[in-house]
């Protein structure tokens, strides 16, 4: 069935939704404005807390980091002190061992000198002279 462009225009002619439409839109707007105002006042009350939250979190992180660093530094210092004490004790032990070794060598040397004198005193004259020449 043929139809003209005018038929299409007539079929698609603008229709008015009625006078109630504007009233409904305006009512929805006021309702939404009231809702937004309520939300804003509530969020306004919460706002300082919302702003304070990140600051508190950052402060907590900083305190934790500083605390951790302090504990770490203390532990390091303790470790250093213990190492120094160990080193000192080791040095003392070494010194004592050295002194004891020197004393032992000195005693041994005196004993040997004594034995040598005894042996030299017991030998005949000509052997003593020969040894002295050698």
């Amino acid at each position, binding site marked *: 069935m043929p*139809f003209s462009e005018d038929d299409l225009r007539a079929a698609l002619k603008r229709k008015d939704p009625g006078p109630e*439409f504007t009233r409904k839109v305006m009512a929805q707007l006021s309702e939404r404005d009231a809702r937004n105002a309520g939300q804003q006042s509530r969020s306004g009350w919460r706002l300082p807390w919302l702003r304070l939250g990140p600051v508190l979190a950052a402060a907590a992180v900083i305190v934790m980091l500083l605390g951790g660093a302090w504990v770490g530094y203390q532990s390091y210092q303790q470790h250093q002190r213990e190492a120094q004490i160990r080193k000192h004790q080791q040095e003392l032990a070494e010194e004592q061992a050295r002194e004891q070794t020197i004393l032992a060598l000195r005693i041994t040397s005196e004993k040997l000198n004594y034995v040598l004198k005894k042996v030299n005193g017991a030998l005949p004259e000509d052997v003593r002279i020969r040894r002295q020449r050698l």
Partner: protein
Amino acid sequence: MSDGQQEVRMTESLERVAAGDAAAFAEIVGEHQSMVFSIALHYLQDRSLAEDVAQEVFLELYQNIQAIESADHLKFWLRRVAVHRCIDQGRRRNHRRETALDGLPEPAMESGMADPALLGKLRQTLDGLPEKQRMIVILRYQEDLGPAEIAELLRMPVNTVKSTLHRSVEELRKKLTRKLGEVRYAIF
């Protein structure tokens, strides 16, 4: 009222709305409600859905009123947002057809000479077209927009709009002929 006077009045209303005058916004709604509502009604073929979409468009306008620069811009903005909301709503509805056309006033009373049965069939047949084609036909014959204006609204090349419009009218013609043929067959 001439187009020039209407434009001046709308520009004044926009300035008043920007200054916080709610009554001025009601004037804007009253002036453009038939345009927005009819785009939605002809596209969705459902009066209640069309009203919802039109209300949504005006609420969105209220939120973005500061961005509107002139009366022409207002009209363009309303058409574009209406088109996109209709397409979104149509997709959500997912081809669930509700024949609410029965509740509409008969167009013959408005157009005088046209055959009411033909106009009703035309609208029904239009509902069977794909979304872009349907919107192009509505913008061309309801809003009397040229292909360039439709192309700008739908962000499509002008030639695509022209060819789609031609194809859509042909398709409407074929579908309508088929539909009326079936009716005749059922009668005889």
